[in-house]
């Protein structure tokens, strides 16, 4: 086992979420503030108790972005002793680190996502694609010494190549991917926040438009306007607050020798996703057999397959068989090992793209146990794996409640 001095010493005490929509006609900052205020009110604390802020670092601060500088000012928080911009899954980990280390006591974490205006195709809003688009719009071209490998595959196409390679190496069929898409959509039909709530079938998946062979429309997450926020504080302080504390039991990031983009030429089981989950299990007393809820990243369904295998639900290459045997045909959802439910909010594929951050807020709500007809009975543990694309920023976080 690895060291884990922070085990259960921190808790998530507030969550806030905006509606999800294909075009809410709102700035990123406005969405971020709505989620932030929701999280503060949910926690039932005075906003001046917040002394750490982690914002979203993707858009420039002065241009409607939701970085910590704009957030703190707009929320009227007088003093913070810790600030950072983060994104996708890792911002949660940074914020927890800050509370654990004593740099602050109560931290607000906000993740806003908006579809890029003027991009005619909705899925053009991947952070990498957006960054590239901004460079181009600013009159720059994609250039530099490191572009030899990257130039020709220019957005999400590497994932399609990974998917093709996975299907070849492990004789997998598209049904594995279809089950993930259908599972997430079925859960989304019961989630009032979800952007996509029309039920789909395996047949609908197979009939969906091919974007990058073999990847289809329903393999890809749904770009939306949205924001999510949460508040982390000490377990001690959490005992005095209104909600049942949701404890941060263990966390791990993941980094590999081969860092970014398609340069991730490492083997299927050597990339950072596997490193992050191995790091998590080395720090967690909760085992895979104890897991009630699992939120594997779903930017593309091939990410989800990787996450399921990296978490150890099956051996590499065996996800197709696992998902077939875990399929509850009556409910149209997956129950891994007959028990663990996957992505009960619909995830990026159906609630909408939030870089996996909506996994955290959904996990907290379910672990509190007050989600009404959506509530998973007796849910006490949740493994959240947001941003776990193969190459960038995977985080694995185990949340639990008493």
């Amino acid at each position, binding site marked *: 086992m690895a060291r884990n001095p922070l085990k259960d010493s921190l808790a998530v005490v507030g969550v806030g979420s905006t509606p999800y929509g294909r075009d809410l006609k709102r700035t990123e900052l406005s969405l971020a503030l709505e989620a932030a205020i929701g999280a503060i009110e949910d926690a039932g604390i005075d906003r001046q108790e917040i002394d750490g802020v982690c914002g979203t670092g993707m858009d420039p601060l002065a241009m*409607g972005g939701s970085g910590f500088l704009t957030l703190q000012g707009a929320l009227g928080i007088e003093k913070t002793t810790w600030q950072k911009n983060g994104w996708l899954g890792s911002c949660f980990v940074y914020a927890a680190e800050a509370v654990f280390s004593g740099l602050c006591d109560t931290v607000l974490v906000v993740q806003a996502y908006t579809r890029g205006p*003027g991009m005619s195709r909705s899925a053009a809003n991947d952070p990498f694609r957006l960054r590239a688009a901004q460079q181009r719009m600013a009159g720059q071209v994609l250039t530099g010494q490191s572009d030899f490998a990257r*130039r*020709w595959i220019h957005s999400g196409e590497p994932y399609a190549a990974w998917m093709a390679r996975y299907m070849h190496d492990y004789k997998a069929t598209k049904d594995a991917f279809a089950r993930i898409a259908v599972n997430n959509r079925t859960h989304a039909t019961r989630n009032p926040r979800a952007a996509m709530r029309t039920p789909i079938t395996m047949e609908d998946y197979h009939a969906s438009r091919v974007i990058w062979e073999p990847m289809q429309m329903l393999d890809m997450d749904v770009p939306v306007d949205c924001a999510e926020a949460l508040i982390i504080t000490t377990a001690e302080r959490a005992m005095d607050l209104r909600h049942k504390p949701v404890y941060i039991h263990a966390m791990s990031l993941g980094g590999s020798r081969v860092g970014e983009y398609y340069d991730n030429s490492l083997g299927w089981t050597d990339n950072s996703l596997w490193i992050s989950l191995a790091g998590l299990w080395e720090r967690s007393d909760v085992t895979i057999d104890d897991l009630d809820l699992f939120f594997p990243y779903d930017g593309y369904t091939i990410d989800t397959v990787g996450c399921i295998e990296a978490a150890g639900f099956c051996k590499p290459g065996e996800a197709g068989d696992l998902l077939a045997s875990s399929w509850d045909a009556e409910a149209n959802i997956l129950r891994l090992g007959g028990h663990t439910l996957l992505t009960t909010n619909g995830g990026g594929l159906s609630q909408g793209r939030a870089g996996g951050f909506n996994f955290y807020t959904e996990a907290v709500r379910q672990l509190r146990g007050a989600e009404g007809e959506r509530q998973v009975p007796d849910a006490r543990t949740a493994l959240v794996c947001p941003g776990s694309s193969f190459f960038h920023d995977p985080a694995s976080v185990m949340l639990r409640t008493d």
Partner: protein
Amino acid sequence: MTAGPAAASGSSGPAAAPEPTRPVPAPDERSAPYWAAAARHVLTVARCARCSTYVVPPDHTCPHCGSTDPGFAFEPVSGRGTVRSWTVVRQSFLPGFRGEVPFLLVDVELAEQPELRVIGRLLDGPDTTLRIGAPVAVAFEDVADGVSVPAFALAEPSATGPGEVRS
């Protein structure tokens, strides 16, 4: 409106702008020899002066021997290799490529060295029947005056080349 491409450009938005054409390479100091060779229809790959390993892309250190002074130099390679994976791009999300679809991208492992991978279009076209391990050879697209972009085309199996790619 929120920040993003339109705000960043200060323009009225891309919707009003003409559809951009496919971007062409813009060589910098380090990549100039690569593009100069490509213009002559020669594929080169950077090679570490310390350990002779081919590296794509050449960065500040050699990932094989760890040298911080790798003295990378572009050397001609055979251009032969095998398909490691591929995708057919049916829809492009980036301006400049929308008029190009569909096109087929191949991930090629070059014959010179295991795991030495280069990505390019397969010029046989998007309807080509492919299999992983299929032999390919470098080909070139002349995209502008004096500017050529390395790509690939299906080749006959080579007696000296690699066979089925390793898992």
